[in-house]
């Protein structure tokens, strides 16, 4: 049985070889043709991208240490805003994280742990960093009938990818808009610069600058 199979295979191979030789032989003898097409057909993958958009450098000046309630009540004109915009034509699943990084020189002891913040909507109402209220749509003490305490974080708590303030999984092509309301913590004390301040001595306080960093990936996790 196996012998017969082997014979058939050998014969088939020989037959094919003979046919090839015959055809080639004939074409050599009769006609040669070669042509290259002018219309190419190609394919390339779409490219993914993920970028900050609408991020304009913003400086808040002449701010004094404030209680959380006062800082949270500050004007919407003081919001830092930016958007994370994907170019994701194939609806690929993309993960990204956002965190803070100190930028430039810190002056006057105004360090990252002295800057409090909450993520808000365009109206300045907290989306994250707010306290507890049975009705989660209530974002201010006045609105909430329960005991409500604002619970903002400091920038220093979210300064690495691993301690990001936001991790998002997206599979669409829609930009995520973010607003950050930040203020100088009531823990910041001018007196620490010179205690007590002398008459006629101007205390200029400090300055702190930060950027928001983003990293994105199509990997299933960071």
């Amino acid at each position, binding site marked *: 049985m196996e012998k017969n199979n082997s014979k058939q295979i050998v014969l088939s191979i020989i037959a094919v070889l003979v046919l090839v030789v015959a055809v080639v032989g004939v074409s050599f003898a009769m006609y040669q043709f070669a042509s290259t097409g002018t219309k190419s057909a190609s394919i390339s993958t779409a490219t*993914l*991208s*993920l*970028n*900050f958009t609408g991020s*304009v*450098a*913003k*400086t*808040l*000046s*002449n*701010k*004094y*240490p*404030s*209680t959380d309630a*006062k800082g949270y*009540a500050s004007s919407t004109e003081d919001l*830092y805003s*930016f958007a994370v915009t994907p170019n994701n034509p194939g609806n*690929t699943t*993309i993960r990204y994280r956002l965190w803070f*990084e100190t*930028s*430039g020189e810190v002056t006057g002891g*105004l360090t990252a742990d002295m*800057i409090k913040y909450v993520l808000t909507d365009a109206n300045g109402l907290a989306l994250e960093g707010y306290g507890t209220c049975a009705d989660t749509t209530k974002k201010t003490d006045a609105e909430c009938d329960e005991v409500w305490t604002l619970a903002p974080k400091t920038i220093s708590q979210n300064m690495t990818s691993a301690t990001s303030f936001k991790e998002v999984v997206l599979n669409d092509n829609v930009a995520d808009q973010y607003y950050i309301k*930040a*203020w*100088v913590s*009531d823990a*910041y004390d*001018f*007196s620490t610069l010179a*205690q*007590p*301040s002398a*008459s*006629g*001595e*101007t*205390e*200029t*306080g*400090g*300055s*702190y*600058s*930060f*950027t*928001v*960093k*983003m*990293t*994105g*990936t*199509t*990997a*299933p996790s960071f």
Partner: protein
Amino acid sequence: MLNEGKSKQILLSVLGVAILVVAVVGISYAAFTANDTSAVNTISTGSILMTYAQPDASLSITNANNMSASNAYAGANHFDFSLSATTNAAISFPYEITVTPTVSNQTFAGQVRIGLKKGGVVVTNANFQIGAANVDYSDGVLANTLPATEIAARATVSKTLYKGTLLTAGTGTSFTATETFSVYLWIDETTVLGGTAESYSILVNVDASAAPLDV
């Protein structure tokens, strides 16, 4: 025999596909990473300037007679000073004016009267005394805002003369406030003057603080 061969082929095929999947997936994992940084955002504090100004020379009253408070306040023997603040927003500064005796003759202190005018208006009790047993700085609103050594020193020998609040006002980023004061020093009208001159001296202290802004 045949089954064994087929099993091997299937196993190899599965392994091959698995390796291919891992390879392809591995490549796709590494295919996309994105990193971006926002614009630089800055937050900076406003400034605070407080000034305690004493435009006149020290007050020295000699050959003082006993007198009533009203006569003392009507007289020209006063020591003037002002307290001012400059900020970039409306800031409230609670302050406390204390006096510290600079001589050790506390027996005579009971005969000395000290008065304070703020903006030309008397703001202290006419019978204010600076006796050693009458120290009340520790109940001041600023008790916890000064360094411990300052508090101890004030509490030991000083007395609160007046407590007030300086509130800066203005527009834009220019806010100021100034208050003017006059300290009056006299011998109580009930004092019987003796054959030997007694003397008493004080220093005026002003301590202020500002709490974090609140709603």
